[in-house]
C-alpha cells in the first residue's frame, strides 16, 4: 500500500477534493445546516490544533506520552515475542504445553483488562505499556513461529552438508528466511501497540492523547475531539509508513 507515489496531477486532485470537502463542511456549519456542537467545524478544529501545538503547545506533552508508551510497548512486546518464539521452535513440547494458556489469554478482550492493569501498574505509563505490550506480543509471537517453521528444508540440507554449526544454520539460514514474516508481524504490532495505549488512555490516564480525547469528549469540545482524531490517524499512518521504509531497506532482496 505504501509504494504509491503521487504525481502532481493526483496531488492537485486530492487538494481539490479536500478543499471541497472541508469547504462544504464549513459552509454547512455557517448556514446552520450542521450543528458544530455535534460535528465540530474545520476552522475551529484548525484553531484548536494551532493552539495546542503552536501558540500554547501543551499537546506535545500528551503526544510524547502516547508515543513513548507506544514505542515501549512495541519494543518490549516484540523482543519478548521473538525470544519466546525461538524458545518454542527449539522446544516444541514446551510450545504444546504453553499453547492453550496463550490462546486463552489472547482471546481475552484486552480493553476489558485495563481496569486490572490500572490497579496493578498505576495511572501512569505502566498500565498503558501493559496493554500495548500484550497486544503486540501475540502478533509477533505467531509470526516468529510461522517464519521459522517456514524455512526451506533444502537450504538446511545444503548448509548442513557444508558442515555448518547449529549456530551458523540459525544465523545464515533460519533467521534470514524468517525475517520477512517477522517483519510483517512487526508492522502490525506497531499499530496495535498504539491502539492499546490509546485505548487504555481513554479509560484513565494522567497524560496522553487518549486521555485528552476522553476529556474533550466529556466536555463536549467537538473541535478538540475531531482534531485529536485527525492527529491519531496521521500518527498511525506515519508509524506504518516508517515501518515499511525500514522493512524495504532491510528486505531489498524480496
Amino acid at each position, binding site marked *: 500500500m505504501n509504494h504509491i507515489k503521487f504525481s502532481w496531477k493526483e496531488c492537485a486532485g486530492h487538494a481539490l477534493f479536500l478543499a471541497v470537502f472541508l469547504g462544504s463542511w464549513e459552509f454547512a456549519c455557517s448556514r446552520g445546516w450542521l450543528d458544530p456542537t455535534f460535528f465540530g467545524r474545520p476552522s475551529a478544529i484548525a484553531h484548536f490544533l494551532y493552539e495546542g501545538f503552536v501558540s500554547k503547545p501543551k499537546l506535545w506533552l500528551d503526544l510524547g506520552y502516547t508515543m513513548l508508551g507506544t514505542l515501549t510497548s512495541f519494543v518490549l512486546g516484540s523482543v519478548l515475542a521473538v525470544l519466546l518464539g525461538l524458545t518454542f521452535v527449539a522446544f516444541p513440547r514446551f510450545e504444546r504445553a504453553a499453547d492453550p494458556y496463550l490462546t486463552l489469554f489472547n482471546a481475552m478482550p484486552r480493553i476489558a483488562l485495563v481496569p486490572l492493569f490500572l490497579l496493578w501498574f498505576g495511572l501512569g505509563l505502566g498500565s498503558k505499556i501493559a496493554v500495548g505490550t500484550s497486544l503486540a506480543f501475540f502478533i509477533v509471537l505467531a509470526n516468529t513461529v510461522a517464519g521459522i517453521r517456514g524455512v*526451506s528444508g*533444502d*537450504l538446511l*540440507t*545444503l*548448509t*548442513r*552438508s*557444508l*558442515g*555448518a554449526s547449529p549456530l*551458523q544454520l540459525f544465523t*545464515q*539460514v533460519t533467521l*534470514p*528466511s524468517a*525475517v520477512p514474516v517477522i517483519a510483517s508481524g512487526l508492522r502490525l504490532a506497531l499499530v496495535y501497540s498504539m491502539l492499546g495505549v490509546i485505548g487504555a488512555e481513554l479509560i484513565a490516564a494522567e497524560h496522553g492523547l487518549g486521555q485528552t480525547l476522553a476529556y474533550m469528549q466529556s466536555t463536549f469540545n467537538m473541535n478538540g475531539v475531531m482534531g485529536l482524531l485527525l492527529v491519531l490517524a496521521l500518527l498511525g499512518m506515519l508509524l506504518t509508513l516508517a515501518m515499511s521504509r525500514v522493512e524495504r531497506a532491510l*528486505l*531489498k*532482496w*524480496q
Partner: protein
Amino acid sequence: MAAISIKNLTIRFGPRVLAVEDFSLDINEGDFVSIVGPSGCGKTTVLNQLTGLLPPQEGSISILGEAPREGNADLAYMLARDCLLPWRTTLTNACYGMQMRGVPRADAEAQARQLLAQVGLAGFEDSYPKALSHGMRQRCALARTFALRSPILLMDEPFGALDAQTKLALEDLLLQLWQAQRRTVIFITHDLAEAVALSDRVIVMSARPGRIVADVPIPLQRPRSIRELQKNHQYHEIYTHVWEQLERGIQLSGDAGQPAR
C-alpha cells in the same frame, strides 16, 4: 583405491519399508557416474547416505577411505532445486559454500568471480536470485558447487526442473567445467539421455526396493559436447541399450513407474 566404495548397503525406513537392498558400488577417482532409475527407487537416499546427513544403515560406505560424516569437506552437494539463498546476491551465493568451509573472504570472492564468469554470469554478481531465470540460478549453483575444492561432487538431479533447451546448455556447461578439472561425480537423474551423454558409467536401479540391475560403461570419446552427441550413432545405440536395461529392471520389480524420455 576407489574414491567411493559402497558395500551391501541396505536402507530401511521403519520396520516395513525396504528402500534400497544390497547396493554395492565402487567408483574410481575422476569418474563421472550416473545413477538412473524410476522415481522412488532410492537414488537420492543413497546419495544422502554418503553425505552423512542420515543415520548409518546396514552395509558399509567409504569415501576416500573414511566413513560418511556430516560436513565432510571432500564432498560438494548440489540439489535439484537451485537452493540459492534469496537474500544473497549471485556473488555471495557463489561464495556461500566456501564461506561455510572457512575459506578467507577475499580468496572466496576471487574464486567465485572467476567461476561466475565461466558459467556465463559475469555482470550479474550483484543481482538477487529473484531477478534471475531458473537456468541462471542453476548456473550460480554450479559455480557455488565447483568453487568448493571438494574432490567428489554429489549431484541430485541438478537439471531436473529446467526446460529442455536450458537443460542442454547446462549439461554442456557441466561437461566443460568437469573436463577442465576432473573430479569424481555421482550424478542422480531420471533422464536417461542426460545420464548417457555425461557419464563414464551408468548405474541402473530397479523400482523399490532399489537394487542395481545394470552397470553400463559408456565408451563415448571425451571431451564430449552434448550438441554433437545428438548426431552420434554410437550415442543412440548405447542409449537404446541402457533403456532396455532400465525397462527390464522395472519389469523385474513389477512396477508400472515410467522414467522420462
